[in-house]
């Protein structure tokens, strides 16, 4: 009754700009799955088919209209498109962004235009650690959890590890990931030696020299934050020479390998990360069962982290709006939505999301890893063994502490297994 009726002052539709890579090398593994997740969820929301607590149609009974935008292109292009979304396409909310640089560039613009903007995938901690924003939120944890978590994981499964090596793309994500991993390992086990730090350029695709070097160096653990096509090329070239048997290879974005496409596989014995509890690590909840099932039925594979992240952003928007509506009993202003959004804790598509950091704008999440025992290419599923999940308090710094400082100071306040 009450819940499906529109509040007074409601517009005819809520327009949401959805930004992700629709072209270029980041599209197949990240941009397109993201868009798929967003589209599926928005359609289901409008039809009122999402399970509780999101079973009311649209947002506050108002249907959602999505405007999809390509994230590919230079940063000035992104800023222009953001402005066009807000000022020309008149969207009420912008959701998305995968590239960290774009998130950093968009945040101040969102403030200027007073537009509720919810980042979905980008992970750079600087967004909320170096600045305060009012209209900008991020419904996923920052990237620290991946590299930090996987470092803790390898120390647990291979406590006697002596040497590590890293192969990471030569750009911010690769640099940050490696720094986090290395710092964490050295913090927790100072006698570990780093035997190789390799920096292939982004999208280089040809890794025979790097692989030879890694084989020759024989490190106990190899850390990599490669993703997308680069990761697949690496896996394809490393498998025949049995790199994954020589060293324990830890991949933070291994779930990229599950995106459908011919001939692709997940090697056995690697440490599998999915940037949170997604993909094969997804916890069983009503929503995750529904979303995963729907997604698989429609797109032929179980959602990896990107579709979940986009879905979470949209669910967060809905939760915030409806919280504000409940408080004001009419259609809320953007400031009221923002106030409702801050420190919000809502049911995400794969477990609860808590906006605990950055003055209530930045989510914290648990993370988990496992070792691949087998891979089923038809269902595109892996079976993991030795799965360990790290709770939020283990891998996220406390509020007000910068991630890197937190690591360097020895994780004060961390609660870990």
């Amino acid at each position, binding site marked *: 009754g009450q819940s499906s009726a529109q509040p007074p002052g409601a517009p005819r539709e809520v327009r949401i700009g959805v930004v992700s890579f*629709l*072209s270029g090398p980041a599209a197949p593994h990240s941009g397109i799955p993201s868009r798929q997740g967003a589209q599926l969820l928005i359609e289901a929301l409008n039809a009122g088919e999402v399970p509780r607590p999101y079973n009311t149609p649209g947002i506050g009974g108002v249907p959602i209209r999505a405007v*999809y*935008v*390509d994230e590919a*292109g*230079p*940063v*000035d*292009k992104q*800023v*222009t*498109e953001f*402005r*066009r979304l*807000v*000022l*020309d*396409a008149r969207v009420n909310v912008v959701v998305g962004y995968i590239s*960290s*640089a774009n998130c*950093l*560039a968009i945040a*101040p*613009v969102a403030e*200027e235009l007073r537009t509720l903007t919810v980042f979905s995938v980008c992970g*750079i901690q*600087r967004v909320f650690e170096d*600045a305060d924003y009012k209209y900008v939120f991020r419904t996923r944890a920052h990237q620290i959890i991946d590299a930090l978590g996987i470092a803790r994981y390898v120390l647990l499964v291979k406590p006697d590890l002596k040497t590590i090596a890293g192969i990471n793309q*030569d*750009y*911010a*994500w690769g*640099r940050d990931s490696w720094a986090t991993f290395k710092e964490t390992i050295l913090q927790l086990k100072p006698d570990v030696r780093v035997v190789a730090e390799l920096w292939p350029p982004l999208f280089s695709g040809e890794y025979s020299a790097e692989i030879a070097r890694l084989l020759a160096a024989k490190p106990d653990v190899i850390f990599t934050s490669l993703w997308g096509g680069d990761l697949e090329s690496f896996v394809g070239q490393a498998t025949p020479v049995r790199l994954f048997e020589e060293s324990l290879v830890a991949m933070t974005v291994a779930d990229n390998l599950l995106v459908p496409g011919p001939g692709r596989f997940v090697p056995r014995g690697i440490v599998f990360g999915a940037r949170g509890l997604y993909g094969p690590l997804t916890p069983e909840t009503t929503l995750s069962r529904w979303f995963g099932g729907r997604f698989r039925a429609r797109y032929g594979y179980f959602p990896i982290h990107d579709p979940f992240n986009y879905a979470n952003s949209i669910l967060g928007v809905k939760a915030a709006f409806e919280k504000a509506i409940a408080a004001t009993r009419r259609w809320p202003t953007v400031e009221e939505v923002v106030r409702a959004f801050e420190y919000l804790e809502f049911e995400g598509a794969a477990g609860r999301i808590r906006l605990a950091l950055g003055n209530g704008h930045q989510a914290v999440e648990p993370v988990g890893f496992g070792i691949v025992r087998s891979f089923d290419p038809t269902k595109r599923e892996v079976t993991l063994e030795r799965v360990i999940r790290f709770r939020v308090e283990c891998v996220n710094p406390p509020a007000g502490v910068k991630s890197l400082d937190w690591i360097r100071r020895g994780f004060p306040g961390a609660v870990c297994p």
Partner: protein
Amino acid sequence: MQWAIVLLLAIVAPLLPGWTVFLLSVALAKALVVLGIGLLMRGGLVSFGHGMYYAAGAYGVAFAMKLMGIREALVLAVLGLVAGGLLASVLGMLLARYRGLFFAMLNLALSMMVYGALLKFYWVTGGTDGMAVRQATFGGFVPPAGLLRVAYFYLSLGVVAIVVSMAHRLVRSPMGYLLRALRDNEVRVNYMGGWVEQTIYRVYVLSGGLAGLGGSLVVLNVGHAVPDFAYWSQSGEFVFVALFGGYGHVLGPLSGSILFEFVRSYAYKVSPYTWQLLLGAMLALVILFLPEGLWSLVERRMARRDRWGWSWRPSS
């Protein structure tokens, strides 16, 4: 002619929707880079590396704000000009010896090394995440939010108006003609006692400065500097726009830049999946059917009007 256009832009700008004003500001700022590249192209020199000067301007602004706390828009713009010009005056000493595709490729190589440096020294430059640039002040004041974009727009417009009119003078001056002359026949220039390298060097530094100026204005508008500014595809885009608009006339780069930004934004809007197809097709059409650039349309029109005017005179 150019003043009429400037006036027109100045008057209509505040009436346009907000994102258009922003788009115009960015397009105007980029037009400066394109203009500089167009000047070089008049001398037969195509640079596929001007992104580095563009980046120099942008990062110049970012560092000036971060390290020196300078926030005055005009000062920052001039700083961008100086940053681009300085870098160009160093590299130009080397590049002035090169012609043709080697000039193009060496520029590309150098700009990719600048790109690499911006990436490598990530602890200073922020790597690919880039550097944020805060709002600038105008005469010490921060314009209210509603007027900020318009202020930036007028800043860009003012700078462009000055630069375009200077460029207009330049292309008709001895130096401008010498540039065209050396493109046609360097041997003859030498045998007239003209100094080819020096002319190229001067124009190169000038175009580097303009690229820096453009970079500083863009980054003030956009608010974020990233290494991609120095990436080869950005440089390629500038060259493209120079041809798209037509570098034969100083207004070509200006109109080309504005049109290109709108076309691209339009393509993003109407077909977010296949904007490249749309953009590519449009560009191919322009190249195939208007190889002198869009501005040649205008010139053809004006030429026709002239002839028409003639026919009114009594025949002798």
